[in-house]
């Protein structure tokens, strides 16, 4: 009986993860398709374009890489640029690490591979909830797999439909809206409010920095301000 019970809790976490990730797909889908179109325009074969979505699996890095490839950028520069633009994921890694500590190496590998902006945003809010579920990694897996599948399918759609993809009707804006839906309920005291405001302000001031380094700077300042305001 106990095993059946555990299995059903895992399944419920997994399905809740799928459900939690669904709204974000509205915003991700147009980006996936546009990536597929851009990659083909940059001269990548269908196989190369699709493989990049599976191997790199990071939207903004993929956009940047195909643009740089079409400009004939040397491989070493491509590698460095791709690495730096994804450095912000180290923040996410630190953020989920305490929750992932009890997991097996295989789980750590699979979930880390899935640690994109869009999966992190949904998953961390679930981890931070007060309930004591031991199976939140199944939620992570459900959310991560949902996003991954959507990204692969939308890439393929972009590659094969090419210029015929419909206009996105401002659907890309739903990505910002989903992040708003996730963040605002999490701002529940003064330190987190100040962290959010200062991070937002620095993100604007540092918008000129390349490779999303402004976003890292903004997050670090926000974290520091949050900590500082706890103490007064």
């Amino acid at each position, binding site marked *: 009986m106990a095993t059946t019970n555990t299995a059903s809790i895992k399944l419920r976490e997994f399905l809740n993860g799928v459900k939690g990730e669904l709204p974000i797909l509205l915003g991700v889908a147009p980006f996936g398709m546009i990536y597929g179109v851009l990659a083909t325009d940059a001269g990548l074969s269908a196989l190369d374009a699709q493989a990049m979505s599976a191997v790199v699996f990071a939207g903004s890095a993929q956009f940047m890489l195909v643009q740089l490839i079409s400009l004939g950028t040397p491989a070493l520069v491509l590698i460095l640029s791709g690495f730096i633009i994804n450095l912000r994921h180290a923040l996410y890694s630190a953020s989920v690490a305490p929750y992932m500590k009890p997991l097996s190496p295989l789980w750590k590998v699979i979930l880390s591979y899935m*640690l994109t902006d869009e999966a992190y945003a949904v998953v961390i809010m679930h981890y931070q909830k007060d309930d004591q579920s031991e199976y939140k990694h199944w939620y992570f897996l459900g959310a991560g797999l949902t996003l991954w599948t959507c990204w692969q399918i939308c890439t393929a759609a972009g590659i094969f439909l090419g210029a015929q993809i419909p206009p996105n009707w401002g659907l890309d804006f739903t990505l910002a809206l989903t992040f708003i839906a996730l963040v605002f309920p999490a701002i529940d005291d003064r330190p987190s409010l100040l962290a959010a405001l200062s991070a937002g302000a620095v993100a604007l001031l540092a918008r000129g920095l390349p490779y999303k380094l402004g976003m890292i700077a903004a997050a670090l300042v926000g974290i520091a301000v949050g900590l500082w305001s706890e103490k007064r």
Partner: protein
Amino acid sequence: MSSIWTVMIVVGLLTFLTRLSFVLLLERWKPPQVVRSALRYVPVAALSAIIVPELLLVNNTLDFSPGNARLIAGVIAALVAWRTKNALWTIAAGMTAFLILENFVL
């Protein structure tokens, strides 16, 4: 074309290792209390750093004016998010506001 594969595999590997970095590090290393407290602010700070420019930058210039549909729709969405804590309502309210402002008002 083989150099594209080299780039993909190396960038993919570096990205994966970045995402895995602290997950592995925290297996062995117990961070000081200040770091553990700091982690609480990562999601709010990181996601705000993504949201705010999305609402306020139009063609890479700041637009605080009421003519900025994303800003107004974002503020409405934020109010709905705060009251309902529901992603679908937030998106529906924000998108409705955005589409009305874009197409009929501004």
